């Protein structure tokens, strides 16, 4: 059934319905079984219409449309992350440690996407409750989970991230000195780190994770989980 509906809606042979008049007007609901692009010097149209769906719905009780009308083939939505294990090494108080990984998104037949991020909790000692707090960046301009600001003061401690690359909000992450703290799972809403309205082909962005501790930070093994969620637009 899906195949039948899909074939009707994405029918490649649309040439019989080329419409040429420069002054023509379409009543979208009354053309039967056509679809595709129609262009002339004065108009560009892409539509799929048909009234057979009504009959199918009445007989079977459902209509399924998988994918997007304006994309003729179903190509997969793809998300990759270059490195999943971020080990910050032995930390020196007042000397930030930095690590990076790369996020890559290909929308395929989706028309746009967002990548959001959150952490399960701040970096926390494995056998206790002591944490390395999430950063609030420089004292002069505190950052939030949705607003990056400069963090280059080595007397400001914490854990945060910067992202640079394609489909990144450069008005927020102005350069690689701008950081945000991670939102916390079950407490905060995930923060958007990459977003695009339209087709993306291997959009890539580099995330830099920064950690800076005070001399009073308790010795131990600190850990947390950072989750990225890539969802296409609809």
């Amino acid at each position: 059934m899906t195949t039948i509906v899909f074939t009707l809606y994405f029918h490649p042979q649309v040439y019989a319905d080329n419409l040429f008049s420069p002054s023509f007007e379409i009543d979208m609901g009354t053309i039967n079984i056509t679809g595709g692009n129609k262009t002339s010097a004065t108009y560009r149209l892409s539509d799929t219409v048909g009234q057979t769906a009504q009959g199918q719905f009445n007989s079977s009780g459902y209509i399924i449309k998988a994918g997007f009308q304006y994309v003729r083939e179903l190509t997969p939505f793809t998300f990759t992350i270059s490195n999943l294990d971020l080990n910050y090494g032995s930390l020196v108080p007042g000397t930030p440690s930095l690590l990076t990984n790369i996020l890559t998104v290909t929308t395929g037949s989706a028309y746009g996407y967002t990548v959001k991020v959150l952490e399960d909790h701040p970096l926390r000692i494995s056998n206790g409750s002591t944490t390395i707090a999430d950063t609030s960046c420089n004292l002069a301009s505190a950052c939030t989970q949705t607003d990056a600001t400069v963090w280059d003061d080595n007397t400001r401690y914490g854990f945060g991230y910067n992202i640079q690359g394609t489909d990144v909000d450069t008005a927020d992450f102005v350069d690689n000195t701008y950081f945000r703290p991670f939102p916390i799972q079950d407490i905060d809403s995930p923060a958007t780190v990459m977003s695009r309205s339209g087709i993306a082909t291997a959009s890539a962005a580099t995330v830099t994770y920064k950690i800076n501790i005070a001399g009073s930070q308790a010795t131990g093994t600190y850990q947390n989980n950072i989750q990225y969620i890539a969802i296409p637009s609809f």
Partner: protein
Amino acid sequence: MTSLHYRHCESQSAEAIPAITGTPKLLLKSQYRRFTPSGISEPQFEVPKFAMTILLLIIFLTSVICHPPSASASSYGVSLTPPLLRVNIKPGKSITQVFTISNLNNEDKLLVARIVPFTQSDDRGNPSIDMKSNPSWLNYFGLANTHIKLGSPFTVKAKSSEQLILALSVPANAILRDLYSTLLISTYSNISSPKFQGSQVSAAIGANLLVTLHSDINPPTILKISSILPNTGAFFKVGNIYFVDNITPLSFSTSVKNEGNFTSETKGIFKVTGQNNTPTYLEGILPVYVISNTQRILLNSEGRNFSFSPNLSQIGFYKIIVQINSENSHTENSIDIFFFPFKIMAGLIFASIFLTVILRTNKTQKIEYFPIE
């Protein structure tokens, strides 16, 4: 230096930026025998065979311990298709849809699939998923696979795919409404090992499910198109009329709000009409979904703002109209514009003034050269 018990042989991956530098120095004085004439030392390794073997063994073991291949190669690469499923279904009916999940990595991946509801989206169709929400209608969904269930981990082998058969069974007494959710497939991880140090990154990929439960294929929709606003071009507004230069390309933005309870689609046209409502330009609207009680930006079929390039012959009143039509509703909005060659007229006026000034200046100068005796 505060020791946090982190390994000493970390941060060696290609992506690592070691902020703390401190290369271990293993200097064997006996290895440096002489200097080259240029003064640059040239080590000569005249080490006994046994010592060389031990040294090589240490180097080998160090490299194996510090560079475990699995640690540096741990990455994520997953694809999912289709990215969107739109279903209109009557209560009491069931459907299935196959989703294909592919593991692009060189290692097997343990994944878990679940349905996460959402109720809102931004004006570009990006859902705001709610991980904590657990409405009762989530029970309508399930996986028809033999060995894979929602919420239970399953393995996708390296460089291979797995098909998830999503089943939707709507009870006959289900409330007529829309159900918005995302099929979210996450990397599965148990509680981190106490030995793991740092941040462990996990990932999830989704596909959106827009389901309408109704006995009619076209449930009533209420769409309202917001004001059409010129973005670029040369124009000014007096009252409700835009006065627009007719040699400057124009672009317009607008959006639509779904005030109904069911998802609607933005099938329609953007058009420019002249006298007698004769269309002079038509452009298709990108057909996207607008879920209930949300707003969505309208774009042309290429995903950009609507554009129109008038020409010199177009002078007078025109209308910019945006129409959206569905099987049982019609909505449109329009603005009035007056095309006029303002730039050309301004140029002509400026040139006329310039010429007049020049001519008057020349006239004055001629009078000065020929004084009356």
